[in-house]
């Protein structure tokens, strides 16, 4: 049966709309999500404008559509993992039931392949592996890529150290890390079941380190929580929901994509091996950066643990997992192992560029252009207007016509507060959100 593009589009759009309009994903007015792991706002109206039949290109990876699709996918994946409120379920039973409802699970399963193809399909065009890959070529390429990554500059860390407000910059990076840090190794856990020989046990050795050998205080996600607390940041899952950059979510989603789809297993191992083999020096450098920003009070056990254990995980992932898998499972598996290495290398580079651009953006309030505005272009904000962040499609100006707005662009720190007659410029690709406690009118226009 041939399904027309229109039928396909209508079907996907209807599924996305029903999912996005369900209780856990409804909008809220506050810029942060507190104390409820089931609250993950989605903007159903902006999602409805997406043409799911036209996957993002690499050039569109930093875009509002990418942000929306990545948030949607993240909710799809994480509604397959167990979250319980830290302070207990009492009072949140309804959210619990809604988040894990059979209907939402059905919708998630239906929309997932389309959303995955839309958000990450460009990897098929950008990463191509051909030829016969024996283990010597595989190891040569992996070692070269590890060497390139380890010895590359770290402009994100340099930008944090040079930032006029180092805590705001570091907080934005930590918020991106929270995507994985607070649920660390959840994607990995999806490959622990089944039966795939000695490599299954090798993967499990890495996993038990991530889980602190069953000691909660040593679990990597606990160490990350300690880091957040010491830096004055919230530790609720997805407290900084609105401040995840699209590329940061996509990198996290990638690991769910290649674990949720069992045929992605070899890509997962390739990607995981590259990260594990490059994390130790990265976390060593990150620890120095965070120490320079926060001083002696910051708890760096999370960084120190990675700087140590990932020396072992890198070796284990490459020599006890990746190479034996390539030898045992042949050329198709070997190509996918290398594909995973290349895919995470590309995604990581794009995510670094995105976070770097966000960190380097220091918006300021300026006097607005006094020229008249078409009333039809004005947007009314009240204290009851749902909060949202978005990615600017082009360089634009947010101009306040009346009242006073709050413009957020980072996970921590105070927002800017332009009043009537004032404006803030937002560069293309930058994430920002606007709210107000008083009746306010704004207009967003291209530069």
């Amino acid at each position: 049966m041939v399904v027309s593009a229109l039928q396909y589009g209508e079907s996907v759009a209807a599924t996305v709309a029903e999912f996005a309009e369900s209780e856990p994903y409804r909008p809220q007015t506050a810029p942060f999500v507190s104390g409820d792991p089931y609250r993950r706002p989605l903007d159903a109206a902006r999602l409805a404008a997406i043409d799911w039949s036209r996957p993002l290109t690499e050039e569109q990876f930093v875009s509002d559509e990418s942000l929306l699709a990545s948030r949607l996918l993240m909710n799809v994946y994480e509604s397959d993992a167990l979250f319980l409120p830290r302070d207990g379920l009492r009072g949140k039973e309804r959210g619990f039931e809604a988040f894990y409802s059979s209907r939402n699970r059905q919708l998630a399963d239906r929309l997932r392949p389309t959303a995955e193809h839309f958000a990450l399909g460009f990897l098929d065009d950008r990463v191509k592996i051909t030829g016969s890959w024996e283990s010597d070529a595989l190891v040569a390429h992996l070692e070269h890529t590890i060497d390139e990554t380890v010895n590359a500059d770290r402009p994100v860390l340099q930008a944090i150290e040079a930032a006029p407000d180092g805590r705001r910059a570091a907080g934005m990076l930590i918020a991106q890390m929270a995507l994985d840090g607070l649920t660390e190794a959840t994607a990995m856990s999806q490959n622990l079941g089944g039966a795939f020989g000695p490599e299954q046990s090798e993967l499990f050795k890495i996993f038990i380190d991530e889980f602190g050998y069953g000691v909660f205080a040593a679990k990597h996600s606990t160490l990350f929580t300690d880091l957040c607390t010491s830096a004055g940041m919230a530790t609720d899952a997805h407290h900084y929901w609105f401040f995840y950059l699209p590329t940061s979510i996509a990198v996290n989603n990638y690991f769910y994509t290649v674990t949720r789809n069992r045929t992605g297993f070899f890509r997962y191992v390739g990607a995981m091996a590259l990260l594990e083999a490059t994390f130790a020096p990265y976390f060593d450098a990150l620890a120095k950066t965070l120490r320079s920003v926060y001083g002696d009070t910051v708890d760096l056990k999370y960084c120190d643990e990675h700087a140590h254990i990932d020396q072992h995980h890198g070796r284990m992932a490459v020599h006890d997992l990746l190479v034996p898998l390539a030898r045992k499972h042949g050329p198709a598996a070997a190509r996918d192992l290398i594909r995973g290495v290349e895919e995470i290398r590309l995604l990581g580079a794009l995510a670094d560029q995105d976070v770097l651009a966000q960190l380097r953006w220091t918006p300021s309030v300026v006097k607005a252009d006094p020229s008249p505005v078409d009333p039809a272009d004005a947007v009314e904000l009240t204290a009851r207007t749902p909060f949202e962040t978005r990615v600017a499609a082009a360089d634009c100006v947010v101009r306040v016509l009346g009242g006073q707005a709050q413009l957020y662009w980072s996970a921590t720190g105070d927002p800017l507060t332009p009043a009537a007659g004032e404006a803030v410029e937002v560069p293309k690709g930058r994430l920002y959100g606007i709210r107000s406690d008083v009746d306010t009118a704004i207009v967003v226009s291209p530069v």
Partner: protein
Amino acid sequence: MGRLRRVELSLPEHNSVLVGEDLYFTFATNGRVHLIASRCAHRGGPLHLGEVRADRLRCPWHGSAFKVDRLCARAVSVVQRGSTVIAYVPVPESTSDDLVAAHTLVFAR
């Protein structure tokens, strides 16, 4: 015994790799670049000058024909990053590294 040498080609400037006197040529199918040994298994003819007919590459010397799919499956290990092609070519121990290079040829096809 041989070893592997990493060679980076910049497309479309480079379309071949020289390893001493051995030649490997790029061959694109479905947007994917393969790096194939040019030496015909029959009498050593130049496959890079061959023509593709009915999914087979024909050697210009004696007409030996090889399935493109099989040539690609046995091709050199290649990673394609946009216009950069990274290849791991087998190099005999007796061939020094300075005899291994990305190269540009005029193909007949």
